[in-house]
């Protein structure tokens, strides 16, 4: 069952590539259909899951020589993320429906092609679109859909993997998939940003691999199995080696998350990526890093994690403040959201660090912190995914992300303004939205263990509130500088459900928390070993 959920998208992708001539519309609808079926399957998984512990476990031999298997399963930590993945990919598929024209490769032509129909300010660069582009369009739409379906499989795979090699396989493939999305369909400087993204995150993934090999060799008998390694706690009391392994794993995950100082790949990658790519990158791919912390780093290296918890907390707080302050200074809407991602992921890091600090003293606070971290991952996925899709709408209308190029959009596009306002408020953690639930839990959980850090991180919320309000004012209020079209049906249908979910989670969080809390408690006992 779980294998079907993981591999259904890629099977559809192969089918899409293999069938000869189909029109773009058919391709896009197939993509939506596949994503919808996927979401239904995930809902079935959620309903059928009776925790705690791993559900839908499958364990097959794969590379027995290194004790690595095809071992997958879901629990309270991974199931919510699997669900967010399915929701976001469906939103992207619906969003892509509305695109009548998809620029081919490298984005060199995208600016020019859109400028003809949009009132945006003139931009330098760009080549005249090549002739015969129409003939190749279905080809491009097809590869775009196939690439996203492939990415969906890969992201699902990371979340359900219970084997380090399998985890790494999917983790690495997510980089490859996203590279092609950015390089193939990004904006002007996409090739450069994509290369930077690939090199940086690939470095991270190799650091991760070194850490995994360290864990493998420390375990007796040697194994890559996550469940077995968690039980064994192989590096207990092995000072330097344990520290080195933890450093390798933390650096690998921190690059992916990303935290300060490993975040430099994120803003260019986001700015250059197409809207759907950004939504997935922020909404799902960043979670691969934070998920790694709760699935691998904490339970497998509990002692070392506790020893270094202070350092993790510091990194988290610095990410929170730095991300917020730099976001405040941005004039580019998409860059701004990218930096708020650094800020939001900082809360997660703060929470998991504080959990390491607390675990010996206060169980309840610890559970709260971990639950908050997972809720924050879910909430950030929904909200930031929506924000990036809205940024995509902005680009469609004006051909730029520059805040100063717009003004008074609310007059001509009320729905656009309304949804953006909701997303912005949700992102800054207003009560009633999922972000509030998450951040409230994180702060309550982290306060007993790290009061100073929590107080500092609290300032981050103030800054985020300021920057969102300022950006909203510039874009939507004031004198109408530009008249833009309101959201189309597909745009609304893709973005609005994400916000509805964020509100539902904010008002009725129980159904999520019931799932996460038992798993967080298990993690708590593991970390305090």
């Amino acid at each position: 069952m779980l294998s079907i959920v993981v591999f259904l998208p890629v099977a559809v992708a192969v089918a899409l590539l293999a069938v000869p001539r189909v029109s773009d519309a058919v391709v896009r609808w197939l993509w939506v259909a596949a994503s919808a079926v996927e979401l239904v399957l995930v809902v079935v998984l959620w309903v059928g899951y009776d925790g705690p512990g791993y559900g839908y476990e499958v364990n097959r031999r794969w590379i027995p020589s290194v004790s690595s298997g095809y071992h997958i399963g879901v629990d309270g930590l991974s199931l919510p993320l699997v669900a967010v993945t399915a929701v976001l990919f469906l939103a992207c598929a619906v969003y892509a429906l509305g695109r009548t024209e998809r620029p081919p490769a490298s984005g060199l032509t995208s600016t020019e092609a859109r400028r003809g129909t949009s009132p945006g300010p003139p931009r330098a660069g760009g080549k005249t679109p090549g002739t015969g582009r129409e003939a190749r369009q279905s080809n491009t739409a097809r590869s775009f859909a196939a690439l996203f379906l492939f990415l969906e499989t890969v992201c699902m795979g990371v979340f359900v993997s219970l084997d380090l090699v399998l985890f790494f396989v999917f983790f690495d493939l997510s980089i490859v998939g996203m590279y092609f999305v950015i390089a193939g369909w990004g904006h002007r400087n996409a090739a450069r940003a994509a290369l930077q993204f690939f090199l940086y995150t690939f470095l991270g993934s190799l650091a991760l691999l070194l850490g995994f090999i360290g864990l493998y060799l420390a375990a007796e008998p040697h194994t890559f199995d996550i469940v077995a390694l968690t039980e064994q706690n192989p590096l207990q009391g092995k000072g330097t080696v344990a520290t080195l392994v933890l450093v390798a794993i933390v650096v690998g995950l921190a690059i992916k998350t990303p935290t300060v100082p490993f975040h430099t790949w994120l803003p260019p990658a986001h700015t250059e990526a197409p809207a759907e790519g950004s939504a997935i990158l922020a909404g799902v791919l960043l979670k691969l890093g934070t998920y790694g912390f709760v699935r691998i780093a904490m339970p497998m290296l509990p002692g070392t994690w506790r020893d270094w918890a202070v350092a993790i907390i510091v990194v988290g707080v610095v990410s929170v403040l730095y991300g917020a302050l730099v976001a405040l200074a941005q004039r580019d809407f998409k860059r701004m959201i990218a930096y708020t991602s650094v800020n939001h992921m900082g809360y997660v890091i703060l929470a998991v660090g504080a959990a390491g600090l607390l675990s010996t003293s206060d169980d309840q606070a610890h559970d709260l912190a971990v639950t908050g971290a997972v809720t924050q991952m879910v909430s950030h996925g929904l909200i930031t995914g929506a924000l990036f899709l809205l940024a995509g709408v902005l680009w469609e209308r004006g051909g730029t992300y520059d805040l100063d190029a717009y003004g008074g959009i609310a007059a001509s596009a009320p729905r656009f303004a309304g949804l953006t306002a909701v997303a912005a408020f949700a992102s800054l953690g207003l009560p009633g939205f999922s972000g509030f639930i998450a951040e409230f839990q994180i702060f309550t959980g982290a306060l007993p263990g790290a009061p100073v850090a929590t107080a500092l991180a609290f300032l981050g919320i103030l800054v985020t509130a300021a920057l969102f309000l300022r950006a909203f004012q510039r874009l939507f209020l004031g004198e109408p500088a530009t008249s833009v079209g309101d959201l189309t049906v597909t745009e609304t249908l893709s973005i609005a459900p994400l916000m509805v979910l964020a509100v539902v989670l904010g008002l009725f969080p129980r159904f999520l928390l019931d799932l996460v809390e038992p798993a967080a408690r298990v993690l708590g006992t593991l970390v305090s070993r």
Partner: protein
Amino acid sequence: MNSEMSMAADLGRLLPEIILACTAVVGLLFGSFLPRRTQWPVRVLAAAGCVAGLVWTVVGGTGTVFAQTYTVDTATNAIRVAVLGSVLLVLVMTRLGGHARETEFVILLLLAALGAILLAGANDLVLLAAAYLLASVPLYALTGFAKDGPGTEATLKFYLLGALLGTTMLFGVMLVSGVGRGSDYPTLHHTLPGAPLAAVAVGAVAVLAGLVFKAGAVPGHFWVPDVTEGTQPAVGAIVTTIPKLGAVVAVYRLATLPPLNWPLLIAVLAAATMTLGNLAAFFQRDVRRLLAYSTISQVGYLLMAVAAAGASLALPSLLLYLAAYAVTNLGAFAVVCALPRARTLDDYAGLRAHRPWLAVCLAVCLLGLVGTPPTGVFAGKLTIFTATFDAGLGWLVVVAAVNTVASVFYYLRWLVPALRTSDEFPRPDRAASVAAYLAAPASVAVGVLAGPILALMAPAG
């Protein structure tokens, strides 16, 4: 067992090599009776010979033959399969339909393949020297096969370096056999620890020099880019794939001899090879030179497994990596062969738009060479890194990891133009495209089936 029976048994174990040699001889005679323009039957004969060799490798037994001068074990069998498979892929890849000297090409290829297999199986220094010559001389001829300027120049460089290092190797063979009172490895295993260390060291390093040349590792790597660029792409694929397969296993067998501090020497060579190969590949504009340097860096990763010879996983991981490397590298070369006129990276602009499947193959093979999962090279790298860690060479793993990240850069430099659009694009060669379509899935298959493959290789370790 009387001597005649053991002779028969020995010959039985050697049947794949014998089949290959006979196919070459029969093919040569057969080809000389065929009309100049229709020599494809020789190609079919060669393919049949390879298939027969593969079948016998699978069903045949193992053991040492001819007074322990030649080993037929898991490693030899694995190299037999890898080499014969590579030959089959090359036969698909090259289309010389109607070429007047097609027979010569096929026969030289078969002989070079035989040399590579003998290199892998040689358990005796003198046999190793003979295998070296058999693996080298046909390749000199193949390099100059087109009889054009660049090819001739490449041949000359190849030959001069080969002759120099070959002579060095012969000198080493003489020295080691002299102080070791024998040339076969079992004897040397007993005698070398008592022999003068300086003489053994000089001799062994001299032998290593020849093998390093065949493997295309530092410091015997200078020929690789020039030959790959100067000769035809198909020959480039052959010289960077087939002899390496045998040479690396030969280095492995040599490295298990006492009493030198081999692991450190090999580890330094490995680190130097991967680093130099990667650095030189960085700003290449010619795809063949880029691939040539990439093959050098790949040997660096392979030598890691040799350096880690003490670990139980070392030999299985080496063989897995060799097989994965062979198929992935041939896949990348097949794409180059399919587009013989696209010489620079920019010439690949428009590949995705016009030939999407070829672009997918190129992406799979290049990312495969990086070691992206789930391709075979990933499984090889994973196991080699593990083995090297296990052998206590953690620093080498870190060097290799950094190199892997660096290598992403130049492989992507090739993929980026391939993603770009262009209005015109040359028609790819059909045969070579087919080879690419075969190689790319195979390289993924090696990774997915890494478990069973490693299980097959395990008895050797």
